[in-house]
């Protein structure tokens, strides 16, 4: 019998080579793998070492944190003048909005933040309801709060300003309620009556506790930047959905008009659209209808972002499998039902990352409304730069640094959110 030598126990495991493990191994692998890589590492370290300490010194160590005017900031070795930002933060946030009325802005911004958080929070309950509030009730209430004028002419309310509406509104609304009740049964009647009651309650409350009117020429700062961006999104999303549907429509005239609108807007810079809104829009309407100074760029921004939004939504519509369309048609749904119940709910969820991305672009683009004379955040910083009480060598850089941090936090946060949603969506669709 031949003898066979077979090892019964495995050899003890060897530790990995020193050069492949631990911090040193990592460094060898990722920083000094080749001569070129080593040289690049050294150059990068040199670059960082020459930039970061200066930046830290400017922004923190040598920075002037408090002071009543720009005296301390004019010292030759002084860094960032945060005292200036502290002194101007009210202006940067609200513009010339009267100090006593700023709670209204805060209320609108907080409500908006809560609503947006609700809509964007993954798996939150009732997101659709939140979206409904954000796109319908919220703009109306915000308009009332910010301008201080009621959402409808006061003449529409009992005891409001006298006018033809005061006489006809009440019986007219009752008739409307009756028709709704007739059309939709008892529930319609109840809803219509409740609506009328709420309407009148708002009117009465307004008459009693009416707000001071604040003209749009007093609006400014971060608040206007956020406002322009939100209005852009509130109006561009529905408009974009319509345009996307129109672009995929079977009706040649509708399709042609949508394509022309979308490609025209996407082919020209936003600035020219703002110029158009500012100079041409007042010419296109009768003189007594000439739109408000703030409204003009808002219209421009809304149309501009609608075209981009339409392309995002179209991507979502195209990503819905054909079987969904066919299934809906096989169920006997008509076009509106198919879109509303089957296609759009899926398509819109699918393009949430795209919507957020175009919102980031929109938010950055709001800085351009300054060309139309709107006092957005950047414009506020730009004008305060030359305030003689503060003007100094570091004021410009301080202001821009502050603005950069603000925009960066917003845009970076949103882009991270969109990436997270993308991952969730793609993992949900993987098999």
């Amino acid at each position, binding site marked *: 019998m031949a003898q066979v030598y077979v090892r019964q126990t495995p050899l003890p495991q060897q530790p990995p080579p020193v050069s492949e493990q631990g911090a040193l191994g990592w460094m060898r692998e990722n920083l000094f793998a080749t001569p070129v890589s080593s040289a690049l590492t050294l150059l990068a370290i040199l670059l960082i070492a020459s930039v970061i300490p200066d930046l830290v010194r400017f922004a923190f160590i040598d920075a002037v944190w408090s002071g009543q005017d720009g005296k301390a900031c004019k010292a030759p070795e002084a860094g960032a003048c945060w005292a200036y930002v502290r002194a101007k933060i009210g202006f940067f946030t609200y513009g010339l909005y009267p100090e006593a009325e700023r709670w209204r802005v805060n209320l609108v911004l907080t409500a908006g933040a809560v609503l947006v958080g609700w809509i964007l929070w993954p798996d939150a309950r009732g997101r659709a309801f939140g979206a409904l509030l954000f796109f319908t009730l919220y703009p109306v209430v915000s308009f009332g709060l910010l301008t201080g004028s009621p959402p409808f002419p006061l003449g529409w309310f009992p005891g409001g300003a006298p006018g033809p509406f005061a006489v006809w509104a009440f019986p007219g609304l009752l008739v409307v309620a009756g028709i709704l009740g007739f059309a939709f049964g008892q529930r319609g009647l109840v809803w219509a009556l409740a609506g009328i009651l709420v309407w009148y309650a708002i009117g009465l409350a307004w008459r009693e506790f009416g707000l001071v009117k604040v003209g749009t020429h007093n609006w400014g700062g971060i608040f206007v930047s956020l406002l322009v961006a939100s209005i852009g999104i509130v109006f561009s999303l529905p408009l974009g959905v319509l345009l996307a549907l129109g672009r995929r429509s079977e009706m040649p005239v509708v399709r042609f008009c949508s394509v022309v609108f979308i490609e025209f807007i996407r082919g020209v*810079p936003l600035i020219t659209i703002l*110029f158009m809104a500012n100079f041409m829009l007042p*010419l296109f309407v009768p003189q007594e209808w000439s739109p408000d100074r703030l409204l003009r760029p808002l219209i421009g921004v809304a149309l501009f972002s609608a075209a981009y939004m339409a392309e995002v939504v179209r991507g979502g519509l195209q990503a819905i499998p054909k079987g969904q369309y066919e299934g809906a048609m096989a169920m006997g749904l008509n076009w509106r039902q198919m879109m509303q119940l089957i296609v759009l709910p899926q398509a819109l969820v699918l393009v949430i990352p795209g919507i957020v991305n175009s919102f980031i672009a929109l938010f950055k683009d709001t800085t351009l409304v300054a060309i139309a004379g709107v006092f957005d955040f950047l414009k506020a910083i730009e004008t305060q730069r030359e305030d003689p009480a503060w003007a100094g060598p570091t004021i410009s850089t301080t202001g*821009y640094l502050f603005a950069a941090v603000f925009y960066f936090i917003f845009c970076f946060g949103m882009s991270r959110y969109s990436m997270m949603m993308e991952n969730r969506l793609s993992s949900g669709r993987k098999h």
Partner: protein
Amino acid sequence: MQDKGPGREQQHCIMTVQDSAELPPSGKPFNWRGLFWQCLLMAAILWLGYEAVTNARDNMQARNIPTDFSFWFGTSGFDINQTLISYSAVSTHGRAFLVGLTNTLVVAAAGVFFATIIGFGVGIARLSHNWIVAKLAAAYVELLRNTPLLLQLLFWYNAVLKQLPHPRRSLALPSASLQMPGAATLVAGLGAIVAGYVLIRFSRRDAGGIWQLLARTCGPLLAGVGALMLIFGGTLAGFPAAAGDAFAGMIGFSSGQYGFLNNRGFYLPYPVFAGGMNRVWLVLALGFAAAIIFYLWAGRRQLRTGQQLPRAGIALALTFAPAALVFWLSGAPVGFDLPKPRGFNLAGGWRIYPEFFALLLGLSLYTAAFIAEIVRAGILAVPKGQTEAAGALGLRRQSILKLVVIPQAMRVIVPPLTNQYLNLTKNSSLAVFIGYPDLVQVFAGTVLNQTGAAVQVIAITMAVYLAISLATSVGMNLYNRRMALVER
């Protein structure tokens, strides 16, 4: 038609109208409802158009605004500081339009050039195996992409370029005195490289433990340091600048101050060509033609015989070497108009205005961040199996990139890249905020304010941008079609 696969469909193309709405099966009864809605839409648009036109006519007549294009031939009466074509205050508004258009095109072309270089560099750096380089590139992209372009423009213009010293205290460029690396640095650098390579070689043997670690880490490190010492030897930018200095001496520069940087701009030497230069240009053109012929021939030869030549190197040499020789032989027929301090300002030379510089800087750096992401996505879109297969064939990393990865990545990169070029061109209209006389600033700004012809001016401005966009998208569709043919 073959199945295109999902990757092709997701490609983001500009304005390719591919709205193949899923049509229901034919044989449907005629859609009267569709006809009704379309008629309604037509009627609404016609009515809106009619209202707009009549209102605009009434409003413009009421405000004495011209309703025709006669302003085009009217005298402009304003000056523009940066012009490529001859222009003065007695020129027409039409001439001003041309000045604005050329300025827009110049800054857009320069921006596209620099943004492409920076963007490809940063995009490739983000995929680097070197951790710190990849992180730096990522930081660049996130920082630039997440702040508004306008903020960046204002920063470059107001916080950087306008804060430079006055002309009398201009920064002279290059600031470091020029010198070759000293003998000691030279020896040390070369020594470090040699030592590094010895260590790398040594580590290939089965040395164990700490020795191996030392050898494998310190080898590349030493060689890298050596290379840096050679390149940046004596002073910052010493070595390449030294070569430049020798050249400068040849064409008659004396001092080391070629350029100045101050709050009125960037002053560079302006080349003045003597008559002998014509010969050089001719030889350069001939060399270029020869290089192209050689390049094509070498490609054919490789296909036939499988033998490779260093095509790019030889083509470059063919282009420039004869021209350089003729340049040398005809006694360097080029002089330089150097900027010189005069009074409170600088005179002569070639002045790059801070407005242009800031716009170029802002546009290129901002767009480069987006291009970097496109490049990264394009390279990542090439399946890893391609790289591995190329490696298995024995190609080096360089060749894998050049021959396998980049050609496939380009197909994914080019459509969104064109989109970015268009964005850059459209974004150049932000020039109006820092006063660079581009199309919008000159025409939609000054001319509009002077003539009041808002409708005409804005329509013309928009038409120009629209024409650029449409021309690009037509070109893009052609490119896509060509690429699709190559696809198997």
